[in-house]
């Protein structure tokens, strides 16, 4: 596995760290395409509840999901620090709304702990692990699972219902 090899080589992963309802999360920097400011999102009817809509990213139509809604977390108000993280996962470019992006952290692999079964209302299935860095708890997300696991079934369910 390519990822495994890389971890052995570098002994640490670079993580983009962001805030979601006052918690700190991290995702692998390799998946991140870019980070943009909030912009007007065109809602798309008859899609799963966590799909916010679509945006125009330099001529491409990109779906945007709200991570809070995804994890059924209390919704935070959009502020000037809200961002859309554009990720490239599973061949699709997808935007994720977060409350703010703080930094890029180097996370030594040996500091990553397996996730507890449930943390801050998020099922462990979506997590890669947790890491304590500078006294902060960073929840590392498994994007493949976050974006595809439930979504796919829910997206499909929507398709079936209306077909």
């Amino acid at each position, binding site marked *: 596995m390519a990822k495994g090899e890389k971890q052995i080589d570098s002994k640490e992963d670079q993580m983009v760290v962001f805030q979601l309802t006052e918690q700190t999360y991290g995702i692998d920097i390799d998946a991140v395409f870019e980070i943009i400011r909030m912009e007007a999102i065109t809602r*798309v009817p008859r899609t799963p509840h966590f799909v916010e809509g679509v945006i125009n990213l330099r001529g491409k139509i990109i779906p945007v999901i709200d991570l809070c809604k995804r994890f059924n977390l209390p919704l935070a108000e959009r502020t000037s620090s809200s961002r859309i993280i554009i990720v490239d996962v599973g061949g699709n470019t997808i935007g994720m709304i977060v409350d703010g992006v703080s930094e890029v952290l180097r996370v030594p692999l040996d500091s990553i702990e397996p996730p507890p079964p449930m943390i801050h209302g998020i099922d462990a299935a979506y997590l890669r692990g947790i890491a304590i860095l500078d006294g902060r708890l960073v929840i590392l997300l498994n994007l493949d699972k976050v974006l595809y696991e439930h979504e796919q079934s829910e997206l499909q369910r929507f398709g079936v219902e209306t077909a």
Partner: protein
Amino acid sequence: MFSDEEISVFLDELEEKIQVLNENILVLEREGGSQEALQEIFRAAHTIKGSSAVMGYDKMASLTHEIENLFDQMRKGLLPVSGPLVDTLFMALDTLQILRDEIIGKDVSVDIEQVVTSLKQFQGIGSPPSPGEAPESGRGPSKQPAGAIDDGIGEVEEDVIREAELKGLQAYWVTVQLDAGCQMKSVRAFLVFETLQQMGEVIKSQPPAEDIQEGNFETGFRVILLTGEDPDRVRNLLMTVSEVAKTEVNRIKLAAGQEVREQAASDASAEKTEQAARADHEVKTVQTVRVDVQKLDTLMNLVGELVIDRTRLNRFAEIFEGRFGSGSGDMVETMNEISSHLGQVAGDLQEQIMKARMLPVAQVFNRFPRMVRDLAQKLNKEVDFIVEGHETELDRNVIEVIGDPLIHLIRNALDHGVEGPEERVRLGKPRNGVLKLKASYMENHIIITIQDDGKGMDPVKLRAKAVEKGLINGEVAQRMSDQEALNLIFLPGFSTVAKVSDLSGRGVGMDIVRSHIEQINGITDVSSVPGVGTTFTIKLPLTLAIIRALMVELGNEQFAFPLTNVVETISVKAEEIKRVKHNEVILVRGRVLPLVRLSDIFERETCAEMDRLFVVVLGIGEKKVGVIVDKLLGELEIVIKSLGDYLGKVPCLSGATILGDGQVALIVDVRSLVKEIGVEEAVYAAS
């Protein structure tokens, strides 16, 4: 082995050459032994033979070799063009096509033996009983003792000469006659060879070079010389060799398959045509530059970005002016200038890229003449097939889709439209039917018409047929206008011919044709006059990537309805809306129009109930539905973009588009919308 790239170039070339062969054999059939057509054919066959041999496709090489031989004889006038000959040639071409399919991995296998045998039979007719007699049969009286000459140019020499001609050299038969009393023939001959080799290349001599060098010849010999020199100069130089009594320099013109004595005037013109032919050839090569469509799409997106940045630049200029006031006058002006120029360039760029995606409709049309010929023959009908507007360009996606519907319409026209020759004569029509296929531009559309002068369609019969088939009831049939009756042929399961032939009339035809065309936002129309003929008109958008759309507003969002599906827009008073069970309807010109609210379909809040409502009337085929929207915004040209794989197929939406200000508007999928409402209707009807 050869790379994929090389093979694909070879296949492209092959396809092109097969098309050339097809076209020119049709010309031969029509006009008899046209030299020009024969020339083209010969060249194409020769190219295929050469390249397939190089690529190692032996079957193809040997087949084309036989074809080439046959054409060689036709070219020399040894073999007249005849019906069976043309049939055999077409058969050979079909075999060639199958061989091509074999290369691209289609699971077909073909035996070329049979075709080769029949090709050889014809060669048997053409080839002379004995070599000596051949020249007389095919030559004009003015020819010099040419029997020997003809034998002199074998296939190998021909190839070499052709190659030389491409390099701008000419081939000549140089005949040298030495003095009768010459003592040192071999020496003189050697000198002659030396002289010739200074000017060019000797590729053949008669008698063979060894014999000449040893003096084993009468008093004369002749050689084939390839040179760029003037023939007169060649002659003069040779005359400087002592004891040379006479020289003759005759240009070899392979083009005509015969050699012609040097004649300034005729030669000049011949050279011109050759050059022209070569120029033609070159143009074709340029056309085969291939670009991945994906790349063009990417380019298109980049241009879109450019346009959006330009809008941002504009806005920034305004802010800039606001902040720094008039003191910055010049700078703002310059910035606006740059911005507008940028916009212009981006616009042009977009147009050019759109054009690059277009292909001439000839891509599809070219295979029809052959098809019409074969069909007409099968049906014993005589038809003049006229094609116009080859060069009309269409988006490649559209081109891919229109092929099948057109084939169906042409088959129908031949099978059901055009009468047999006897019947036509009896009806006082010209013996030959006329089938016309035409493509042309009209505003932002392409119009393709297929017109025959056959028996036409009788609305009365169509009505009766539809009632008989249970597609409509008698009362409806009586109310129908003639035009509506004609449109009955587009109903699924409608076929006017009782006898099912293998060509058309399976009863799945016209509705499939229409739905294919609708798929690409096209419209199919028919007009027909009994006894005079039928015309099918297909109206297609220039491209699938850009459509004209009616923009509407719901809440504060914009939606786009493709204009091809919009029948009309009307404004109605709230009290005009009637309720039938759960459904809202209105009466439009005496007809009930089911209504649906866009806000319900898309689960949106709408502006408060108003007195006047705007209704967009949508039509798919015969089905009409009214959609209530908040506001009509007008028409706009929009670029269709997919919503992407992540969202997949969203019900009632076919994609999205980016508006001038960078905002995204959703495009309504009218087809699925109407279908959805149709389901509800059915439920209501059943209850």
